[in-house]
């Protein structure tokens, strides 16, 4: 047999990109060890609970951006859709709209943005960077427009109890395991991850996502509906952005116009750290789990170690560049040069 058979872990979570995930996992363990050495509170029950809740938004955003990256595109509008969704749901609830309706309307609007992104990139053939830059600006504008360029009041003012339920569901609630509080936010993130990981690794849609990112033309010639696949990826991304927007609304109990700023970049960062390539076609969704963990651990750990915010950003930035560099170097060794057709 030419290459070794794949079984075990590879069979479980898909083949491509397992290597990098495991490497990063090791790095993560080392990081945790270092930080808990610096500050023993790190692994304290309270900190872990908070940590997991902090990771959640990154995981969700990473899932959305991850899908789009694997198709070989990018979604710059995630942060703005997040902000728009935060403002929209908060504004609606401040006007007394039932949370369920508010969520439904917000979700619908976000999905429209996702479809728009997909159409612009797949059918109008706009470069993804430009298309989503455009929707990013539009959605940020809508976020400001929704409540007349003001942040909203508390959603509990008009709705009272219903709003409290909303906040508990998305942010404040938790499951107690002994002394540890596992917040709902984290549970939601894991649930979402499980669903989308299943789709990506076990369904035809997921297979097509990889194929389109790996070789668009070959996919097209094989009968894959390339446009539809790309649109699906962008819709998933918009869904994830919307979800985090709702979480954000539940966090503060209000709507903030600049919620979600830079979150699309965080999405790229956590995907890339875990091995999803910006060139498409490769990487598993578990990448997002380890990537978010590294990010949040660094953030939290450095905070506990007393480091200033600026330093955290610099360190995180360096790690992102390092991850992409590793990806590029690895790929260049594997590029097969086909014969060029020329005279």
């Amino acid at each position, binding site marked *: *047999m*030419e*290459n*070794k*058979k*794949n079984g075990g872990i590879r069979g479980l979570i898909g*083949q*491509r990109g397992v290597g990098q995930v495991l490497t990063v996992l090791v790095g993560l363990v080392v990081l945790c060890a270092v930080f808990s050495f610096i500050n023993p509170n790190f692994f304290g029950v309270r900190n872990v609970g908070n940590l997991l809740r902090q990771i959640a938004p990154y995981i969700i955003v990473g899932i959305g951006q991850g899908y789009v990256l694997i198709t070989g595109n990018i979604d710059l509008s995630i942060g703005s859709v997040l902000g728009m969704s935060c403002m929209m749901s908060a504004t609606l609830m401040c006007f007394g709209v039932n949370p369920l309706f508010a969520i439904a309307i917000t979700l619908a609007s976000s999905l429209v943005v996702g479809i728009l992104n997909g159409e612009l990139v797949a059918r109008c053939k706009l470069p993804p960077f430009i298309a989503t830059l455009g929707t990013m600006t539009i959605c940020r504008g809508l976020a400001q427009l929704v409540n007349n360029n003001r942040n909203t009041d508390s959603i509990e003012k008009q709705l009272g109890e219903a709003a409290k339920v909303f906040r508990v569901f998305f942010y404040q609630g938790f499951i107690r395991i002994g002394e540890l509080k596992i917040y709902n936010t984290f549970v939601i993130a894991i649930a979402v991850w499980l669903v989308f990981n299943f789709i990506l690794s*076990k*369904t*035809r849609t997921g*297979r097509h996502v*990889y*194929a389109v*990112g*790996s*070789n668009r*033309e*070959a*996919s097209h*010639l*094989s*009968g*894959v509906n390339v446009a539809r696949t790309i649109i699906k990826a962008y819709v998933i991304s918009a869904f994830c952005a919307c979800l985090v927007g709702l979480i954000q609304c539940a966090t503060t109990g209000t709507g903030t116009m600049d919620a979600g700023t830079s979150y699309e970049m965080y999405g790229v960062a956590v995907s890339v750290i875990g091995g999803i390539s910006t060139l498409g*076609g*490769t990487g598993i969704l578990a990448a997002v789990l380890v990537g978010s963990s590294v990010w949040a651990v660094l953030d939290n750990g450095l905070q506990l170690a007393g480091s200033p915010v600026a330093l955290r950003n610099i360190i995180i930035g360096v790690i992102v560049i390092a991850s992409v560099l590793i990806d590029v170097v690895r790929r260049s060794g*594997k590029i*097969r040069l*086909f*014969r*060029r*057709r*020329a*005279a």
Partner: protein
Amino acid sequence: MQANEGRFIVELDHVSKSFPGVKALDDVRFRLRAGEVMALLGENGAGKSTLMKILSGVYQKDGGEMKVFGQRVEGMTPKRAQELGIAIIYQELNMCQHLTVAENMFLGREKKRGIVLSQKEMNRRAEEILKKLRIDIDPTAIVGDMQVSKQQMVEIAKALSTNARILIMDEPTSALTAKEIDELFRIIRQLREEGRGIIYISHRLEELQHIVDRVTILRDGQFVTEMNYKDTTMSEIISYMVGREIKEKFPRVTCPKGKKIFEVRNLNAGRMVRNVSFSAYEGEILGFAGLMGAGRTETTRAIFGVDPRESGQIFIDGKEIAIRRPIDAIKHGLSLVPEDRKRDGLCTKLSIRSNIELPNLDIVTGALTVVKNGLVGRMVETAKKNFSIKMPNADVDAGSLSGGNQQKVVVGKWLARTSRVVIFDEPTRGIDVAAKVEIYHLMNRLKQDGISVIFVSSEMPEVLGIADRIIVMCDGRITGELDIKDATQEKILEMATDFESKFVAHA
């Protein structure tokens, strides 16, 4: 093999196809029987690829009739072709590099239970097919990790997994070693025995004898002939492929051949340029003929310093020069008018003026590298006059000009400097007849001015019409050199298809 026994599974009659400016297929006839290997032969541009793309649904025919397995077919699409059992394996592989063999084989036709992919079943089925063809590849291996030859095997297995009864193979052996070709031919024979029909497109005429039953020959978009392979000879095939009457008159000028200006010795640059050596003289037009993929463009690029080279020496006027980058070539008086003028020859979004200025900045700049617009203006005027460039003014985008005029701008910018050697790569491609003639006159003028002109062309009539001496390349090597008085189309094609035999012949 009983090739004459099978029924017709493909019948194409009076098929025509035109693209803007060119009639690719004109009243073409094609037949394929079950259980036979049919070679489809013709020069580059004869229409083979277009015909196959029509059969496989990538293009729509303009006129004519298509019958597959005896049924008339209208409105063929790639999906429909697949359903009818037609599979085409392109020369450039169409695999998703990140996916496994099995995943590629079932791309677009994935097997599933509900919404879950039945990966195990697809792997099993893939393994079955690979085993049946006796191809030793693990279905769970990632395609990108495999050699090109193995990837080609996967493409064939993929075609078979769709139960293709009609297989079209375009240059299947180009990337294979002798042993792998053996394997491939064994598979083809097996498929033939199963009653499938195989259309085999190749320029490696020597290989045909080992595998082919019948031959169809196209020339300049028209059907020439169809016959049993064993009823014909290689020279007969070649003369059918090129035996056109050359009706066009080319403006040839004769002038005395001067001294040797330019010499290349033992140039090696990868697979496409192998031990290339030649000389060029003053007052001579040296033509480079050959098929696509022969390595001519790669040779020009290696000479000009565009692509890295492993070894080789270049001499101008007897003195060796070092060329590591294009600027070195330019400084020594070489000019290259590239094959793809829109991509490599011009900056289409810049003005004509900027384009002409660009390689001549050293001439037109003064102190502190400030550009002297007056000098540039004169340069543009000179080019416009010398080459009759039709332009509204010098500030329009170069990309807005017609093909012929664009080509003249490319030539014009180079000839603003004193060149000793001008290399033209497919100079008249995509240009109307009148402009072509002007380019020929241009090359003649350069020749008369004592400049060495080297020109690469895939159009045989043109090479025979204008060149004084012809060098033929095949698969990276020089396979022949002809003086114009001894050159014929047949001789050129023979040399152009003189591939190194990968075989030890056996039945």
